[in-house]
């Protein structure tokens, strides 16, 4: 797969950048071209924001059967995290020695996501760890 397909999203994925609808104030990650509720009123007016990276676990799963690119990491925890600013996001949970549970506070960390063996590309981005 071409490299551009991945670096195109790097800024969003490295910095947790989304946007907010100026009309209804709803925040989105990843950024959306328009607010699905306010439609036209929001086109061209969405305001970029950077999320704090703090949130809570909304749901999670321990992944035992992993895709090839992730097989060296298994078993690993995938979660849907609800960010303090509202949006939910799918991410891996790391450094959770005692496991995780619904409602557990977490914070974003910048980590290696995976390596693609044939091209040797290493992808980075957000993961979350239990908040101190």
């Amino acid at each position: 797969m071409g490299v551009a397909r991945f670096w195109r999203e790097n800024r969003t994925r490295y910095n947790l950048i989304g946007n907010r609808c100026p009309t209804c104030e709803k925040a989105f990650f990843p950024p959306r071209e328009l607010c699905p509720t306010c439609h036209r009123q929001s086109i061209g007016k969405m305001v970029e924001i950077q999320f704090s990276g703090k949130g809570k676990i909304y749901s999670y799963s321990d992944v035992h059967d992993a895709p090839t690119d992730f097989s060296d990491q298994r078993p690993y925890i995938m979660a849907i995290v609800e960010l303090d600013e509202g949006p939910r996001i799918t991410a891996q949970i790391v450094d959770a020695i005692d496991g995780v549970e619904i409602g557990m506070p977490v914070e974003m960390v910048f980590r290696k996501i995976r390596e693609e063996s044939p091209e040797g590309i290493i992808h980075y981005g957000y993961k979350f760890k239990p908040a101190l």
Partner: protein
Amino acid sequence: MTPFGELWDRSLRTLGIEAGLNAMVDAGITSEEVDALYVGNMSSGRFTNQEHISAVIADHTGLSARNLPAIRVEAGEASGAVAFRDAYLSVASEVYDIVVVGGAEKMTDVSDAMAHEIFATSVDQQWEVFLGATVPSLYAMMARRHMHEYGTTKEQLASVAVNAHKNGSKNPNAQFKNQISVEAAAKAGMVASPLGMLDCAPISDGAAALVLAPLDIAKRMTDHPVVIAGSGVATDTISLHHRESLTTMRSTSVAADLAYRRSGMTPEHVDIAEVHDNFTISGIMAVEDLGFVEKGQGGPAFESGKFDIEGDLPVNTSGGLKAQGQPLGAIGIAQVVEVTRQLRGDAGDRQVDSPQVGLTQCVGGTGGTSVVHVMKVI
């Protein structure tokens, strides 16, 4: 339809052709009477390196000798169901009279790991799969929330698979004909917690097809035509994390509402249903979102036997995706084939006592698309 399973000796085209010809023979029609072909297929390009599968199947079923239109439809795992709906619309709107609609997928020409990778192209590649999510892990997160919000248990999840295998054991076309116990299903090795191996439907090859026609023509073909009384299709966010609730599939409840309203029926009218049990949690959420039980009551209802073949409302008499098999593009068509057989009284050992109304529900991705059809005898 063809048998479902790991069919090493059959290719995608032989499966598609076999199902198409079987349907035409069953309807007693020849290729001269057909006006168009619709094919549901999710990913023939990645599974077999062959796109344009509509023309391949039209060619080898003899339809392209008359240069008939052939249309392929893709909507993830709901490809077959959306193809069925589009074929239905083409007949209902009087564009065509007799239409053959089929679905096919050949999943075992690639490795198991590759098959799961291709499977996951129906969910959000960029914001779910790229970060390590698998399809089972996304459904596992629905299951985790369902357990958290409604107290659903591992044993209740297992009872969905137990029912599927019990019915599959009576279906000659089923991939799995073995019965399983609740204990075995609840204790099977983990795939993505809380879902274990027996909570997941298999990788399968297979194809299914049907013939659609206006009622007056259908009545000439058979003494037992089945009527499409209502049809609904709906979408939702492609990423699971963007849904307000993980325990309701809104695309299913919206599609069901459309199909019920169009048919003038309610969930109480439904005698049998084929639902998209790609995972056990999906079966539980489906019976809730279709209005068969209150939200949160799906687990206890499966456990109580309500959805068994001898129960109030038999669900997945075919064995469902779990036991009959899961050839992606063929799923939605196979569901309609089963409901048609049941309504015609042709379901053999698994025949339910004279059902009048049947329902099918098919899902793409984690609910990015859902399709619901209500069918009845006349």
